[in-house]
């Protein structure tokens, strides 16, 4: 029973982190903040994968998954930061309210 409470605690924390990350993604106007929201949600996802490995008895497989997803996460952060910096050089601010060229 205590094992299951332990698992539930991890699941609940993870969901709360995903909600914070996605909320930030939707509500904030700052591009870097959006990327930080993404990272917060991805942390929770890594935790879920490790928990799944722990539950199903495949810790090592779960580790390989997490390592791969960390590599991807870093490259996504680099690309997102690159696009954000180019937008900053265009508009002089990191505000997404400037992004209004595409409508309809």
């Amino acid at each position: 029973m205590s094992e299951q409470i332990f698992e539930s605690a991890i699941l609940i924390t993870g969901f709360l982190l995903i909600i914070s990350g996605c909320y930030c993604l939707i509500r904030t106007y700052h591009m870097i903040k959006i990327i930080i929201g993404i990272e917060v949600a991805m942390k929770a996802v890594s935790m879920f994968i490790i928990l799944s490995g722990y539950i199903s008895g495949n810790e090592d497989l779960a580790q390989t998954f997490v390592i791969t997803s960390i590599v991807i996460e870093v490259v996504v952060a680099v690309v997102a930061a690159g696009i954000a910096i180019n937008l900053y050089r265009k508009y002089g601010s990191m505000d997404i309210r400037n992004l209004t060229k595409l409508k309809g």
Partner: protein
Amino acid sequence: MEAVVYTCLGLMLVFGILAVMLHSMLKSAIALAAASAALGVIMYELGAIWAAIFEVSVCSGLVTVIFISAISLSNTDKKDLPKLYEDGKRMAFLPLVLIISGILLIVVAISSVSSLPVPTPVAEVADNFREILWNHRQADIWGQIIVLITGALAVAVLFKEGELP
């Protein structure tokens, strides 16, 4: 072990929310690194040692460096930030949302906690991780190589100084 994990879960949640809520980008990035470190400890406690090492070194190290360099390239006056981006107003409802969803999740958890699967203990095999990574996940390794090539191309294309059209 459980006490450590519970503490780190609490820390991770607090730092995660701080990363999202703080006005200063620099403090946000540091809070994210702290959340990452807490996750590293949780991974270590759950038996994922290699993943923990990666999490701490790459996520709380390298990613923070990326963020800080992005922030320093785009220096907005710190005093203007709250006014410009209205983060205080925009994010004001997050604590409320989190409390409500937290209560809901706890209710769901209490009603179904006994039906969660019980962990299966694994037989310890020396170097099992390395064996799985190199002998079973080759497609992932090829994928990682290609992701890294893409990342290198991204740096070459997106961070190149020059005239903007």
